[in-house]
C-alpha cells in the first residue's frame, strides 16, 4: 500500500511539473513582450533597463497605428458577422440536414482552414479580381471569413450534435412551428457555442497576418500589417507595446466569455 502511495505521489508530482512547464512555454513569450514594452531604452531588449509608459503614450499619439487598430477592429466585427450569418446555417445544414452531400459540405467548409494562410490569401486575391473586388477592407474581411468559418461551423456543430433532437420534436408536438422551435429552443441552446465562435473569429479577424497581407486594402492597413512594417524598419519597444495591447484585447475577450457563459461550456 505504502509503495503505491509513494508512486501515486510521484506521478502526480510529475504531472504538475509537466503542466507548469507547458504553461510556462505558453505564457513566457507573452509575458516577455509585455515586460519589454515598459523598457526605457529605444530598442527591443531583455531584461529591461528601466520602467516607463512612454511607448504606450507614443502608441496612442500615432494616428497611423490608431487608424490601423481601428481598421482591424472593424475587420474583426465584419468577419464575425459574416461567420455567424453563414456559419450557423451551414452548421445546421451539416448536422441536421438530410440531403446528399451534407457530410461533404462540412468537409468543404473546414478545408480553407487546413490550407496555409498565404495560399488562401493569394487564392482569394485572384478570385476577388475575377469578381472585380480589389484588395480592400472588404476583400480582407471576406478572405478571413472564409479562413475561419471552420471555427464557427465546428463549434456550433459540436453543440448541435449534443443537443437532443427530441427537444425540437417536443416543441413541435406542443404546437411550435419550425421557426418558433428554432427561435425558442435551438437558438438559445446554441448561444454559448455561437458566442465562443464569435470571440475566436473576432480575434482571428483582428490579428491575422498570413491571409491579410495579400487581401488588405492599401489605404486601410490593418494592425498586423502595420506592425510588420514597423518591425521591419525599426527596433523600438513600440511594437512590444502594440502587441501588449493585442494580448490585453484577447484576454478581455476570453474574460467576457467566462463571465457570460463560462469557459468550460465553450466546448460543451
Amino acid at each position: 500500500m505504502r509503495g503505491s502511495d509513494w508512486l501515486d505521489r510521484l506521478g502526480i508530482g510529475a504531472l504538475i511539473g509537466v503542466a507548469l512547464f507547458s504553461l510556462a512555454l505558453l505564457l513566457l513569450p507573452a509575458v516577455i513582450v509585455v515586460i519589454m514594452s515598459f523598457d526605457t531604452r529605444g530598442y527591443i531588449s531583455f531584461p529591461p533597463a528601466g520602467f516607463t509608459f512612454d511607448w504606450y503614450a507614443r502608441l496612442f499619439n500615432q494616428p497611423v497605428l490608431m487608424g490601423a487598430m481601428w481598421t482591424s477592429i472593424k475587420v474583426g466585427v465584419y468577419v464575425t458577422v459574416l461567420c455567424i450569418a453563414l456559419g450557423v446555417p451551414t452548421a445546421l445544414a451539416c448536422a441536421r440536414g438530410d440531403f446528399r452531400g451534407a457530410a461533404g459540405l462540412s468537409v468543404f467548409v473546414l478545408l480553407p482552414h487546413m490550407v496555409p494562410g498565404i495560399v488562401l490569401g493569394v487564392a482569394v486575391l485572384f478570385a476577388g479580381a475575377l469578381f472585380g473586388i480589389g484588395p480592400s477592407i472588404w476583400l480582407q474581411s471576406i478572405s478571413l471569413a472564409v479562413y475561419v468559418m471552420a471555427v464557427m461551423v465546428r463549434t456550433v456543430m459540436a453543440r448541435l450534435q449534443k443537443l437532443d433532437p427530441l427537444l425540437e420534436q417536443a416543441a413541435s408536438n406542443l404546437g411550435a412551428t419550425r421557426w418558433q422551435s428554432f427561435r425558442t429552443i435551438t437558438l438559445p441552446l446554441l448561444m454559448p457555442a455561437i458566442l465562443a465562435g464569435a470571440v475566436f473569429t473576432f480575434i482571428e479577424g483582428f490579428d491575422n497576418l498570413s491571409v491579410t497581407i495579400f487581401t488588405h486594402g492599401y489605404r486601410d492597413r490593418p494592425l498586423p500589417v502595420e506592425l510588420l512594417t514597423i518591425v521591419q524598419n525599426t527596433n523600438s519597444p513600440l511594437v512590444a507595446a502594440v502587441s501588449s495591447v493585442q494580448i490585453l484585447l484577447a484576454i478581455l475577450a476570453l474574460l467576457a466569455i467566462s463571465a457570460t457563459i463560462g469557459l468550460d461550456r465553450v466546448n460543451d
Partner: protein
Amino acid sequence: MPATAASGSQACVVEIRRVRKRFADLIVLDDCSLTAQEGEILTLLGSSGCGKTTLLRCIAGFLKPDAGEIRIDGRDTVPVPVNRRPVGVVFQSYALFPHLTVANNVAYGLKMRGAPVEEIRERVAKALATVSLSGFEERYPSQLSGGQQQRVAIARVLVLEPRVLLLDEPFNALDAKLRGSMQVELRQLIKRLGITAIFVTHDQEEALAMSDRIAVMRAGRIEQLGTPEDIFDRPQTAYVADFVGASNFWEARAASGQITLPSGQIVATKLDGDVSLLIRPHNLALSSAGGSAWNGRIISRRHVGALMEYEVEAGGTRPLRIAALRDVEAASLSTGEAVSINLRDPTACMAYPRP
C-alpha cells in the same frame, strides 16, 4: 363516414386503419389496425423492433405512414402537421427544455398558441398542481429528480388538454422501485382526468399493470389485442403466451379433442396432432415423489419475491418452471429431490399447433 365505434358504448377516439410503414427494405408496420376508446389506456407491447414506437410516432405525426388512416375523433390526421394535432407526447427521455424553468416548460405550448398571459399563469399553476409540483415553478429541469422531471413532462402536455396522450416508455429512465409507484400514480392520474392514453412499452409487467387493453405487436403486426386478462390467460398465439408472463410449453399430441399429460390429467382442445401446451408456472403443483404419475427431479430453485420458483426436469424438451407460494410445503423441496407434478387447472391451459 364517421369512425366506426367498436363494441361498447364509449366513443372511439383514435382509430388506426391498415397503417403501413417501411424504411427502405424494412417493413416496420404491416397493416396495423386498432382503436382506442374514450378514457382508455391502451398499451402497445412488444420487443424492440416490433414497430410499436414507429406506430406511436405516426400517431404523433413525426412520421408519415406509407398507407392507411389514422383518425382522431373521426378526422383523418395523416395530412395534419405535427404542431396542429390534438396529441400530447411524453418522451422516454422527457425532452424537457433545459434552458427553461419548470413553469416556462409547462407554459411553452400555451405561449406558442398565443394565449393571454393571465390565462397561461392560471393554467400552468393548475397543471403543476395536478402533478403535485406546485412550488417548483422556478426550478430548472436539471435541478429535479427523474420522477419530478417525468411529472413536468406530463404537465407540459396536459396543460394543452390534448385528446390523446402518447407515452413512449415513460418509466425507462426511472429506477425499479420508483417505477412501480409512478405506474400506479400515472394510471390514477390518467383515469382521474379521463384522458385517452396510448402507451408504448417492452415491459410486459408494466403493460399488465397499467393498461385497460394491450396490443401485443410482433414484426409490424398486431398479434393480439385484448384486456390484460385476455392477454395473460388466453393468449391467442404461442408468441403472445411466451412474451407475456412466465410460461412452459409442453409438447404433446392431441387426439380426438384431448391432450393427455403424464400425470393422466386431460386437457380439452379443438386441435389435432402435434401441439404445444401453455402451462403457466403457477398452474403446476409440486409434491414429494409418488404424488402422481408425472415424475421429475428438481434442477434448481430460486427465490422470486413471495414465490419459490423451481426448474424441474420432467421428461419434456425443456425443464418445467414451477412456482410455489413460500408458505406452502412445496416451497421447502430442495435441489436434486425427486418430485411429482400435477396440473392445477386443466381449463387454464392453452394449446397451439406445433409446426
